[in-house]
């Protein structure tokens, strides 16, 4: 059973999402990965305004490959989420509602998700060509100098993902006990 969900997510919609749910996401989302997160985090720490409003948004951890002519975007699968963990609680406190990535999150992120009522989706790592078919349009919003690491807005239709950690902190990720 696949749930169809639309962005932006309402608080009610987030509460309805349970770890393990397969979803198809439509609407628009932000993108951002290591370098953009570092910059956003530094601005938040300094109490300065952000170049992109993140309140109510979902952010996709991705650095797409260049688009071939005739394609809206190049292959665009998720990157490892744990590298964003250091910056994530500050972004969630600022109103970010969801994240899409791959792999594990740390305790601080999960606690902040529970506190702020947020959801973490897993997209399938390495399914970049397949995922890019659901991205209909991409525009650059900020940090164009970062190239693939810039913040884009993606307009998606039926973007495939799985609720990996829900807003109660339940997780379907098989975490390692070695950490």
């Amino acid at each position, binding site marked *: 059973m696949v749930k169809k969900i639309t962005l932006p997510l309402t608080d009610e919609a987030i509460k309805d999402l349970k770890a393990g749910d397969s979803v198809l996401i439509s609407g628009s989302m932000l993108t951002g990965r290591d370098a953009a997160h570092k910059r956003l985090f530094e601005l938040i720490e300094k109490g300065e305004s952000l170049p992109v409003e993140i309140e109510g948004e979902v952010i996709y951890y991705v650095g797409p*490959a260049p688009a071939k002519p005739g394609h809206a975007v*190049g292959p*665009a699968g998720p990157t490892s989420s744990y590298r964003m963990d250091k910056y994530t609680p500050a972004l969630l406190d600022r109103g970010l509602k969801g994240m899409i990535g791959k*792999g594990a999150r740390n305790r601080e992120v999960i606690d902040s998700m529970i506190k702020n009522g947020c959801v973490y989706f*897993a997209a399938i790592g390495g399914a970049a060509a397949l995922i890019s078919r659901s991205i209909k349009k991409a525009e650059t919003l900020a940090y164009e100098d970062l190239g693939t690491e810039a913040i884009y807005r993606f307009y998606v239709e039926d973007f495939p993902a799985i609720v990996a950690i829900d807003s109660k902190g339940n997780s*379907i990720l098989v975490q*390692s006990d070695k950490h």
Partner: protein
Amino acid sequence: MEIRKIDAAVVTETVKKLYLDMNYHIGDDILTALKKASETESSPIGRNVLSQLIENNKIASDEEIPICQDTGMAVLFVEYGDRVVIENGSFEEAVQQGVRSAYIDGYLRKSVVRDPVFDRINTKDNTPAIIYTTIVPGDKIHILAGCKGFGSENMSAIKMLTPSAGIEGVKKFILDTVAYAGPNPCPPIVVGVGLGGTFEKAAMLAKKATLRPIDSKNPDKRYSELEYELLSEINTMGFGPAGLGGSNTALGVNIEVFPTHIAGMPVAVNICCHAARHKEAEI
């Protein structure tokens, strides 16, 4: 002794083709292993993930777009015949130009930054490639090329074990490294293991092991049995495809070995995602 002249442009064109080919078309060894995994996978989500990966590889191949957006850092193992002379350029620059052309003309992502710590500015052409060259007798150049994504590269580890650790110590370090990586390196993974040599030799062997077809075995029966044992053990860990649970955490374990010092037993584990991209060519 007869010298063979090879034009630098031939080297460049060969390297370019290797990088376009590996990024668009997954190897038969990986595709066969993914299909086999989807038949044996115990978890329904895991089966779904595997079928999406197989479909993804078909889309990439049909449309000639990269399998994964992380088109990696280029690593090449070269066996350079000692009777070869490069004309109209240098071998090093010819290889770098091949990588540069593939990444620019082939819509591959440029993922290399000039300085690792301070400014981290993108070189915009995915160079430099990392080239390991061995001089061998002969008049040919053999190139084994790979592109290494960093989701899995970051999960790799090396340890300078000492002889008393024995085979149990080796197994424990490999399994601990895979368990520590958990769901992060895009399982089902390929595990490259380098045993012996020195600190850097072990790491190079581990890298080379990730580029060996996963349907091949170490020629020494003791090590091929260890490859099989480790693979079975890893697949009981439960991480499964995409780390969402299941019975296929790894597609293969490849071990490469080298003589070492009386005091040492280095072990390096280079983890590679399911998009284990490698191709070879001879000029």
